[in-house]
């Protein structure tokens, strides 16, 4: 990476009395990237974000934001960092607009009603602007958290499960909002258990389990390397066998002899090529389906392998 990474984590370890939540994690994130941090419950995602955002005291290692070491220079980078925490919180006394105005003020921003209205509109909260935050619905509270995290126009944003409990429509809106942030040069670190979300948004993916970062890779490269596409074909009539050439490439006849399937992996033949060969062999094809590679399967494979030799790049 030629320029200073926005976020530079080196050998970060966090020990709790009874367990190691982060173990020797190193990670660099360049400006303008959307980085998805994936892993099962308790993997250490929130702890990692907390160590960067000033909520967690690290045991050892260094964290640099925009080149500032948090150890010696904890406050200056904070002006440019935003966090949507995983846990919903709310203030029992103040309204949505007041809470947003306070949050902007904490970050040293003078009152900017236009910015607040813009966020309320983007998060579909305008009609709730003067409601006491305690009385918002669960999903609305989470949307308010997102607005709070963005009100000071941060350059680095952490979204810790931002769409948990948010309805489908707003989730789509949020995705386009995140893309807009990226277009403006904002760096986004995202955790989510909706893998579709990571698949939609992420440039790079990090997979963490039991406090250890198992792999970090470009999403497209990761999908190409570990993604599996499944080709299913149904024939017009019973087949006794597949042509030998197709069998050699890994295609198998189904038990009822009315269909065949093929799993396309890194290094195997391509599914469309096999389909072409079926046509060329004059087999009567009634139905074809090709299931796209799923990040979900990739994640499961990586976790099962524990980042072992087969999956590491």
């Amino acid at each position, binding site marked *: 990476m030629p320029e200073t990474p926005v976020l530079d984590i080196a050998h970060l370890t966090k020990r709790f009395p009874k367990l190691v939540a982060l173990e020797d994690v190193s990670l660099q994130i360049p400006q303008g990237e959307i980085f998805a941090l994936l892993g099962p419950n308790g993997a250490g995602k929130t702890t990692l974000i907390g160590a960067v955002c000033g909520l967690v005291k690290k045991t050892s290692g260094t964290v640099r934001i925009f080149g500032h070491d948090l150890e010696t220079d904890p406050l200056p980078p904070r002006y440019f960092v935003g966090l949507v925490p995983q846990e919903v919180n709310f203030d029992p006394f103040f309204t949505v607009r007041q809470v947003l105005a306070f*949050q902007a003020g904490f970050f040293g921003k003078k009152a900017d009603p236009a910015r607040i209205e813009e966020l309320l509109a983007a998060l579909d909260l305008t009609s709730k602007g003067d409601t006491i935050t305690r009385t918002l619905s669960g999903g609305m509270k989470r949307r308010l958290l997102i607005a709070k995290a963005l009100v000071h126009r941060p350059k680095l944003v952490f979204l810790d499960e931002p769409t948990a409990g948010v309805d489908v429509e707003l989730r789509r809106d949020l995705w386009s909002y995140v893309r807009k942030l990226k277009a403006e040069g904002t760096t986004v670190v995202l955790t989510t258990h909706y893998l579709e979300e990571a698949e939609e948004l992420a440039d790079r993916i990090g997979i963490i389990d039991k406090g250890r970062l198992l792999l970090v890779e470009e999403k497209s490269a990761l999908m190409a390397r570990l993604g599996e596409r499944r080709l299913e074909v149904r024939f017009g009539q019973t087949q006794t066998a597949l042509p030998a050439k197709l069998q050699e490439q890994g295609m198998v006849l189904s038990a009822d002899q009315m269909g065949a399937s093929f799993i396309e992996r890194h290094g195997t033949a391509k599914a469309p090529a096999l389909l072409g060969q079926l046509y060329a062999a004059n087999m009567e094809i009634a139905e074809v389906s090709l299931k796209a590679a799923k990040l979900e399967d990739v994640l499961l494979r990586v976790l099962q392998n524990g980042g072992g030799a087969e999956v590491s790049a």
Partner: protein
Amino acid sequence: MNVVGTRTLLSKEVRRFLKVPGQTVLSPLISTTLYFVVFGYTLGARQTDLEGVPYIRFIVPGLVFLGIANNAFLNSSSSLFITKIQGTLVDLLVAPLGPMELLIAFIVGAMVRGLLVGLLTWGVALFFTGMPSLHWGATIFFLLTASYVFSMLGLLAGLWAEKFEQINFFPTFFMLPLTFLGGVFYSVDKLPEPFRTLSLFNPVVHMVEGLRYGMLGLAHGQVAFGAALLLVLTVITTAVAYALLKSGYKLKV
């Protein structure tokens, strides 16, 4: 120094207690006024003058002190504690608010409430007793330092407490005995030994005596000592609170 951030948090702190004025201002004002009426009038009628002033006048500075100490303490302790419990602490920790910013906002916010209740109590008392002769300098000094020290103590309690039970621990087991043994309702000079000497180790005694000197003009040998003691307490509580906030004690995991 994040000036806008500090000012925002301070204004939030003040608006927080002004949202529920019945609970945070009116109710303490009523209870101190009741002390005043009950102790001052019923007892005062039978009490001889203390140190040359009628009893009803004599207890005013102590009651003003009670209003200040209790409310300053309650404000910073409960505000910080609630922030921790309801999770809005995150909003402060992610922001560029360092120990200095947090200290100023929480302490000044608590002082405003303490002084508001204290001064209103004084106003009510003046209505009954009339304006006495004053040492303005001493009055202001002891009002400010007493409210400052108790705001700091409240902040420390709020930092330390993790359960509701713990946050109620201080007012009951610490503040109440210390203030009631602090010469609010009597003259420490009249206590038999060894209680008189023991009382001098209670900092509250010096705060009350200092205010009595300022607000009633009653001179005591220990006023200068009291002032020095308060300055020392100011420095110690500030240093401890600053160090704890800087270390993230019970704020960060």
